[in-house]
């Protein structure tokens, strides 16, 4: 199960272990953590909610997209759900490839795609309120009601 959601804290090493390979010379990981200050506002904690069945499918799709673009890559992604405190880990992405350039590029691709197509939402809780956070890519919302073909493929 290289692609999963977890209600419990994520163990980074166990995600890395899924991609280690005799033909890998490079493993990159991206670890998304809960930051205290965003745009001058102090976060107390976050809640991550997910459409679980579809989120896992979309993580698997990202893995398949990576395998298509970087055939020698191995990918594993675990995303946390529920309540997270400051410095807690929200997501771990591990990618192994024979050479380092691809490991960075493919990992970067994964996080950008998560922020586009994986149905997971975070609610920020501050001292003076709370709010579900929208698209953090800061692109326009999709006028056609779903990502365009080029959004999904690029």
């Amino acid at each position, binding site marked *: 199960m290289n692609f999963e959601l977890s209600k419990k804290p994520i163990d980074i090493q166990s995600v890395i272990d899924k991609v280690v390979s005799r033909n890998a010379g490079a493993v990159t990981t991206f670890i998304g953590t809960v930051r205290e200050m965003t745009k001058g506002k102090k976060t107390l904690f976050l809640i991550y909610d997910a*459409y679980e069945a579809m989120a896992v499918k979309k993580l698997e799709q990202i893995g398949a997209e990576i395998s298509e673009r970087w055939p020698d890559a191995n990918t594993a992604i675990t*995303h946390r759900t529920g309540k997270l405190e400051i410095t807690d880990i929200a997501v771990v992405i591990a990618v192994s490839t024979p050479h380092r350039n691809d490991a960075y590029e493919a990992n970067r691709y994964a996080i950008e795609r998560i922020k586009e197509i994986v149905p*997971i*939402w975070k609610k920020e809780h501050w001292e003076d309120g709370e709010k579900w956070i929208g698209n953090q890519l800061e692109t326009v919302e999709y006028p056609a009601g779903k990502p365009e073909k080029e959004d999904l493929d690029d």
Partner: protein
Amino acid sequence: MIKVLLFAHLKDALGKEEVSIDAAGLTIAAVKEKLAADFKLEGLDAVMAAVNEEFADEDTVVTDGDIVAFIPPVSGG
């Protein structure tokens, strides 16, 4: 009947995550209008839809037993 799933602010607005509605034969656009009318649910225009866990466009027609999810802009990662 189709099952409608709502998330994030839509779930908060409706007060629950799931509702069954009589909408077989309608397009996604029409399902949105129906939800807006029946439940006073606002802001569905800018929201993506998924039918049976795959993204679907406004013209997609839903059939009996489908699971339709409305997917606000995501913020995972």
